[in-house]
């Protein structure tokens, strides 16, 4: 057992696996953090990720160009974000219920579209994958670093800078902290929330795109596998701080990848797959149990803003 644990090849693959698994979680949680700072809560992350995953696979499949796939995924994310913003701001939709609705809807819609596009049930056909940024060789195995890895880290750093180091950040945060006061100070609260909703939608779209055409090269039913929900949990875990979200995503990515690693290297006899599959979800619950109380988010997040 001890030789297995210190085998450098396995350790290296575990590290690279964690770096792969963290990407959608980081994009999702940074999007949600910036959105919540402006006062909206998007509970439809899972659904938007899934819609974008489909769109990107479709784009890559029809054109053979994965960058068109990325474009499709981003557009679907942005449009979903805009719609979400419009319905929350203008029609004062209940943001939790709407999020659950989007998630259910996207499961149904993507399955219908999968059959319409690929005439197969439950999964599509393989598509062109986004080329890796670089390949690193350790021993006789090659590990690929995704383009999305630096992208997601830059996004997290940029979001931190935007929120806490610029005057725009102050504007955004004031909308989330006290919308009435922000309005009195002459800030266009709905406009800020629309913009942040689109921005968050783009990040959710990128996360879904990454899952479908970078991490995988095929669309499968419900392939986001709860990562949207984990992203929302990570927002609380990281205390609404995009920098902490980098660490949090890496930690969760590690647990996400641990299950594949243990079953591959130790075999199912020692630790059954079902037990390992539970780990990321259990970790999320435990993290919420520990950080739930301490966490204090934007005061006005999730409350529809009614202009007096």
């Amino acid at each position: 057992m001890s030789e297995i644990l210190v085998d450098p090849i396995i350790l290296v693959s575990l590290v690279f696996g964690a770096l792969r698994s963290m990407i959608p979680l980081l994009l999702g949680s940074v999007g949600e953090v910036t959105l919540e700072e402006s006062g909206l809560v998007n509970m439809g992350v899972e659904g938007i990720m899934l819609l974008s995953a489909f769109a990107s696979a479709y784009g890559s499949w029809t054109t053979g160009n994965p960058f068109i796939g990325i474009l499709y995924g981003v557009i679907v994310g942005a449009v979903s974000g805009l719609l979400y913003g419009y319905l929350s701001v203008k029609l004062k939709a209940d943001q939790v219920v709407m999020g659950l609705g989007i998630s259910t809807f996207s499961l149904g819609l993507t399955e219908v579209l999968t059959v319409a596009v690929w005439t197969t049930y439950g999964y599509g056909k393989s598509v062109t994958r986004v080329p890796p940024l670089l390949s690193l060789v350790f021993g006789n195995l090659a590990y690929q670093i995704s383009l999305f890895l630096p992208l997601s880290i830059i996004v997290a750093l940029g979001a931190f800078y935007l929120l806490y180091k610029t005057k725009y950040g102050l504007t955004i945060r004031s909308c989330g902290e006290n919308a009435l006061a922000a309005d009195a100070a002459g800030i266009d609260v709905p406009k800020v929330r629309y913009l942040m909703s689109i921005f968050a939608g783009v990040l959710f779209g990128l996360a879904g795109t990454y899952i479908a055409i970078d991490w995988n090269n095929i669309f499968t039913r419900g392939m986001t596998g709860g990562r949207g929900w984990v992203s929302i949990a990570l927002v609380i875990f990281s205390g609404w701080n995009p920098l902490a979200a980098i660490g949090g995503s890496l930690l969760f990515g590690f647990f996400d990848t641990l299950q594949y690693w243990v079953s591959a290297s130790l075999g199912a006899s020692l630790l059954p797959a079902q037990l390992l599959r539970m780990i990321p979800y259990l970790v999320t619950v435990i993290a919420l149990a520990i950080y739930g109380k301490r966490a204090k988010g934007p005061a006005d997040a999730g409350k529809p803003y009614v202009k007096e």
Partner: protein
Amino acid sequence: MSNRFGISREKVNKVLQSVAIIVFGFAIGGIIMFAVGYDPIAAYSAMFFGSKEKGMQGAFGGIFGILSTIREASFIILTGLAAQIAFSAGVFNVGIEGAMYLGAFVSFMCAYSFSAPAGSVLGVLGALLSILAAMIAGLLWMSIPAFLKIKRGAHEVVTTIMLNYVATSLTELLVVKFFLPTTGVPPGGIVTPLISRSAMIPQIDFMGGQLNLGFIPTIIVAIIAFIVMERSVVGYSIKVVGSNPNAAKYAGIEVGRIILLVMLAGGAMGGLAGAIAVQFTEYRFDQAFSPGYGTSGIPVALIGRLDVVGIILAGLFIAALHIGAQSIQPVTGMPSQVSLLIEGVIVFSASMPGAFDLLKKYIKPKGEKNE
């Protein structure tokens, strides 16, 4: 404002809103079907009335269809009531699915382990105790997110969804570990052996079909839910907490206890749904028994407008949608998940009471006061 039938204007409005939401769901579903190249009329007709050529009955196109719809509705009304009681207190309990899996497994374990002559007093007692054990299992499972919400402030939507994943993996693990240790997963799926005969609640021959008796516990729960929600102090307190937690605090209502109560009650109802799956329906634990009964409770509670009678009607409707969707695939080739699409639009539209105010502004004649 009531007319001579005792039906208030408000109630009529609620019903109209629900009908509008359902029509909207079907309209969007139809537009999407049309856009991807299916005939929505043919699909919906297959859904509700089946197709003679393909031998499918849809939701209402024959006795098998109707009996299936009733069976499906017993689950969905139960999970809808569980969602309703939580929503009424402003709690979004999405964890009914997990409680149901735990309940189903515990119901199976109890009903598998005891044996008594079928029909004997001991046998009946064992069957009832297995159901009770399932409810307790669901309740205990739900105490985790309830505790986390009350004591740690963890958002129940996230914790319950995470715990749903844990519950399905956990029960799968237990079945594979203890009932399929040598064979691994057989082609028939992850299933256990049958429970003891005395714990099986039989299905009744009815006009050539099999009537599942799961609707009986569901109706009992619906009656209890009605009495509690509409005729008791507890029900009133739940509604006060849901509409204004601060006012509830001033009125001396212990908000934490109400939240605990509604979540545990939901857990017990989920556990009961699990017992119905095992002891009334499949007579064993099948890992794939639920097509998402727990999640379907959400649209049911929403279009049932948090009203017990409304939830029964809404539950029958969503059940028809599910059973009907199974006929869609063989008839039109469209996947049965199309029902999720329609359900999603329904939940989505139910989130926007503001949309109705907007509509009212255009529809209502000038000078009439908005309610």
